[in-house]
C-alpha cells in the first residue's frame, strides 16, 4: 500500500505538530475548565475587534498591492519568454531569502535615517518622512515578500491560455487592448483568484514583518497573540489563534468553490 510510505512522516507530524497545536487550541475551551466564555467575550472586546479589522484591512491592501504590481510581471513572464529566466530569478531570489533578513532590509531602507529618507533629504526635502513603524511600512514590506505568491499562479494561468486565442481575437478585429480585456483577462481569472487567496491568507497570519517594521500602534492579530503568550495569557492567545485559523480556512473553502481555482492552485507549483 503506497500510503504506508507516508506513514513515518504522518506519525512525525502527528506527534510533533498536530498534537501540540491541538492541545494549545484546546486551551481556548478548557482553561481553566470547560467553557465557551473566551469566545463569547470576544464580541465585546474592543481591542480584539480593532486588531481583527486592522488585520483584515492590512491583508486586503497587501493583496490589492500585490495584484496590481504582480499581474503585469506575470504577463511579462509569459509574453517575453526570452527574459523569463531573468524575471523568474528576480522574483524568486528574495523568495529564497529569510523573511527576517528581508524585513531588516526594509528597516534599513525605510528608517528615519534610512536610504530613502537620506536620499530625499539630499534632494532638498525639509525633514525626513515617517514611514518606518507605520502601517504603510508593513504594507510595503509585505507586498514585497508576498509578491511571488501572486505572480506564479497568475503566470501559470496565463501560460495555460492557448496562444491561438489571442491571434484569433486579433484576426477578428480586436485591438490589443480589447483582446486583453475580453480574452486574456477573463481567462486568467482562476490564476488571479488563486494568487489573491494565497496572498490574503498568508498575510492574515504574518508576524515577523509587521512586528519589525509596523510599529506598535496598529498591531495585527498575530502580534496580539504573541503579546498574550508573552503575558502567559494562554487561553486568550489560543482563542485568537482559533479565530485566525478559522478565518483562513473559511476563505480557502470559499475560494476553492470558484471555477478553476482549485486546479490552478494544484498546478501552479509546477
Amino acid at each position, binding site marked *: 500500500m503506497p500510503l504506508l510510505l507516508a506513514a513515518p512522516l504522518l506519525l512525525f507530524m502527528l506527534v510533533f505538530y498536530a498534537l501540540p497545536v491541538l492541545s494549545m487550541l484546546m486551551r481556548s475551551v478548557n482553561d481553566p475548565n470547560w467553557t465557551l466564555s473566551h469566545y463569547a467575550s470576544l464580541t465585546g472586546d474592543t481591542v480584539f475587534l480593532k486588531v481583527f479589522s486592522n488585520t483584515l484591512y492590512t491583508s486586503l491592501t497587501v493583496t490589492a498591492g500585490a495584484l496590481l504590481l504582480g499581474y503585469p510581471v506575470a504577463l511579462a513572464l509569459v509574453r517575453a519568454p526570452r527574459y523569463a529566466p531573468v524575471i523568474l530569478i528576480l522574483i524568486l531570489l528574495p523568495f529564497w531569502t529569510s523573511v527576517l533578513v528581508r524585513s531588516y532590509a526594509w528597516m534599513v531602507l525605510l528608517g528615519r535615517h534610512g536610504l530613502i529618507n537620506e536620499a530625499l533629504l539630499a534632494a532638498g526635502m525639509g525633514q525626513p518622512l515617517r514611514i518606518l513603524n507605520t502601517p504603510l511600512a508593513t504594507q510595503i514590506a509585505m507586498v514585497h515578500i508576498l509578491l511571488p505568491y501572486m505572480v506564479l499562479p497568475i503566470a501559470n494561468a496565463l501560460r495555460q491560455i*492557448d496562444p*491561438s*486565442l489571442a*491571434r*484569433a*481575437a*486579433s*484576426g*477578428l*478585429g*480586436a*485591438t*490589443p487592448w*480589447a483582446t486583453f480585456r*475580453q*480574452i486574456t483577462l*477573463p*481567462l486568467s481569472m482562476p490564476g488571479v483568484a488563486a494568487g489573491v487567496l494565497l496572498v490574503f491568507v498568508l498575510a492574515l497570519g504574518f508576524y515577523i514583518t509587521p512586528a519589525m517594521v509596523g510599529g506598535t500602534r496598529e498591531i495585527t492579530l498575530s502580534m496580539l497573540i504573541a503579546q498574550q503568550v508573552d503575558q502567559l495569557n494562554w487561553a486568550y492567545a489560543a482563542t485568537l489563534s482559533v479565530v485566525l485559523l478559522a478565518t483562513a480556512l473559511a476563505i480557502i473553502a470559499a475560494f476553492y468553490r470558484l471555477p478553476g481555482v482549485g486546479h490552478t492552485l494544484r498546478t501552479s507549483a509546477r
Partner: protein
Amino acid sequence: MTGAGRGASVSLSNLERSYDRVAAVAGVSLDILSGEFLTLLGPSGSGKSTTLMMIAGFETPTGGDIAIDGKSVVATPPYRRNIGMVFQNYALFPHLTAADNIGFPLKQRGVGKAEREKLVREALALMQLPDHGERYPRQLSGGQQQRVALARAIVFKPRLLLMDEPLGALDKQLRENLQLEMRRLHADLGITFIYVTHDQEEALTMSDRIAVINAGLVAQVGRPEDLYDRPGSRFVASFLGESNFLPAIVRGIEDDVVVAECEGAIIRALCPGRPATGEKVMLTTRPERIRFADGAFASTAPQNRLSVTVTEAVFAGERCRYMLQARDGTAMVLKEPSSAAIRRRAVGERTEIAWSVADTILV
C-alpha cells in the same frame, strides 16, 4: 474596393519569412483571384501555414510583399485587415458561448446589440446550429465547434476567408461532409477562400486551383485536374496522388512526344520541354491508368507496354491494388476497379501491362 466582385484578390510577390536565417518561406509569388477557392497544399514544414499566417498578419514577412486588392497590407496589423480566419484547433473562446463567439467580431466593429443578435442568429441558422447559441465550446462536438468557428469567421462579411487545416481533427465521414459544405458555402458567399491543407484528396475535391508548396516555394499552381494529369515535377507527381516512376533514356522526339527506352521497351511520354537524345529522364504514370494488357485487352491495349511480374495483390474493397516488378527491378503499382467479372491476378504471375501515351509524363 476595386470592383472585382465580392471577393478580395490577393497578390503575394516574392514573399519570404526566415527564422534565424533558416527560410520557412523562401520567395512565394502567387496571384489569387477575386472569388477563387485556392488551396495551399504541401507537406508539414513546407511553409504553407507560415504563408497563410503572413496573409492574416500574425507573422511578419522578412521579405517581399502582400497586396490585398492591389494595396500592400504588410504594415497593417491583423485587427485592421478585415480577414476571416478559421484555425486548425478552431480557437473558440472557451469562456464565451457559441453565440458570443460568433458575435465577437461584430462587437469589435461596434455593431449594436440588436443587430448583432440578428446576425448571430442568421449565422447559427446558416450553420444548422439554430439551438446551440447558448452552449459553451466544450459542450459542442468537434464538427459543431468547427461550424461555430466558420460562422465566426464569416459573420462580419469579410471578402477573404483563410482556413488553416480546419478539418484536420475530424473523422473521415464528417470531413467529407464538411468539404462539400465548404464548397457550397464558397459558392453562396462568392468571397475568396485560401485554404491550407496537407491532404491532397481534400485539395483536389474542394479547390478551384491548387498551389503545391514545397520547401518554402511554390512547386506548381493550377487546376486540380491539370496538376494531377500533368505534374510539373517529381515532387508534385508523388505528393498529389500516387505515381509510378520509370527511369528511362531519351531516344528521340516525335512532335510533342518523347520516345524513351525503359526496361528494354519503348515508352512514349508527353513532355513540355525538349530533352536531348541520350539524356536520362524520369517518366511517371498514375497507378489507376495502367491496365493488364493480356486476354481481352491484348489487341486494343494502349500504346505503352511493359512486361511485369505480380509481387503483391491486395483487395481493398472498391479496387484491387497490385504491386508489380519490371524486368530490371523497378517497382510499380497498378490499381484496378474491383469487379467480379475481372480475373484477379495471383502473386508470381507474369503478364503485360499497358497505358496510354497521354497518361505518361516526363518529369
